[in-house]
């Protein structure tokens, strides 16, 4: 197996993975979407709300705010030793919001949420929550918990996680360089130079085969295929966790599940023999 980092910053990561198969990258993708935990507002206590939005709508908007997550210091509520429904310092963070539009209309932004732990705060302070007219007020306490994407999309640490085959395009010498494929390609994979068509951006190809269909020659001199064991794996974090942390967490979770399954089938064997 061989990995190459194509692109990486605080939120995005794109890897070229050689020597693996669809079930493996798909398992990682599924685990990232449904099993890697992150933090989100789970419950709120509305103390005062005179805005025009109902409590439920405000609660929903709060839930969908991505929060910076600390996986090492907090437990999932179901795995926390406190076993309490309300939670403890190890499985719950409290955010408070206390705003009033004193002079005219006011938009409340996510940076006005005060967290008891400054590490657990909205990823962006510029997410609008609600608009208040003069003298309207909102006062609430929000409880943040760790959770998994399979229970609610607000607990998904990624906004996007996909993989695709590494494209493989071959243009034979028979090409007359008409340039039809250059014009039709939605991802600008090709470029025309004099009487020839060249591949400019191979990785952008989405294997749509429009270029093959648009070709006037028969048989078409372009052959589009893909490398069976090579994938481009992209993931875009919501900001809750770093992309490399998300992926390594997914690898850990997959190993944990496999280990558990392994021990379960071993137990089964002992029982029967």
């Amino acid at each position, binding site marked *: 197996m061989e990995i190459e980092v194509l692109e990486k910053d605080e939120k995005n990561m794109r890897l070229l993975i050689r020597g693996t198969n669809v079930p493996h990258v798909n398992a990682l993708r599924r685990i990232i979407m449904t099993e890697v935990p992150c933090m989100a507002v789970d419950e709120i206590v509305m103390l005062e709300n005179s805005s025009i939005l109902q409590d439920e709508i405000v609660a929903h908007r709060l839930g969908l705010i991505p929060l910076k997550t600390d996986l090492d210091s907090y437990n999932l509520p179901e795995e926390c030793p406190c076993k309490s429904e309300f939670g403890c310092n190890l499985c719950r963070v409290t955010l408070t919001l206390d705003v009033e539009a004193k002079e005219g209309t006011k938009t409340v932004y996510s940076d006005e949420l005060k967290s008891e732990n400054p590490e657990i705060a909205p990823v962006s302070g510029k997410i609008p929550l609600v608009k208040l007219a003069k003298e309207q007020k909102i006062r609430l306490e929000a409880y943040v918990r760790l959770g998994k994407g399979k229970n609610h999309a607000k607990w998904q640490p990624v906004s996007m996680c996909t993989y695709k085959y590494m494209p493989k395009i071959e243009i034979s010498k028979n090409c007359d360089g008409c340039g039809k494929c250059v014009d039709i390609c939605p991802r600008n994979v090709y470029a025309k130079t004099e009487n020839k068509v060249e591949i400019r951006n191979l990785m952008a190809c989405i294997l749509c085969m429009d270029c093959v269909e648009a070709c006037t020659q028969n048989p078409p001199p372009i052959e589009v295929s893909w490398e069976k064991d090579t994938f481009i794996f992209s993931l875009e974090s919501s900001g809750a966790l770093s992309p490399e942390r998300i992926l390594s967490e997914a*690898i850990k979770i997959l190993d944990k599940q496999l280990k558990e399954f392994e021990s379960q*089938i071993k137990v089964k064997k002992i029982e029967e023999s």
Partner: protein
Amino acid sequence: MKVKALKKTANELKIEVEGVGHTLCNLLQKRLLEDAHVESAGYDVPHPLASNAIIYVRTKGRMKAEEVLQSAVEKIRETNKEFGKELQKVLKKA
């Protein structure tokens, strides 16, 4: 994760696993079918909302079904660990 044996003969095994979905089953099926001892392998997720799956393996007779199942799990774990190691190595460089 609870495993219940539904059917068991000399070279067949059908188990029901609680708390497992396509993620693990698809990986398992792929690995099982790569094994030369396996005649047939498949899985079914009876209901998309209930997270339990039925896994079926039949070997050609030389090996027991649970043995091939176990070796498949081991192989997957190895690949996954290799992937993790490779990733750490590449990320350190980047």
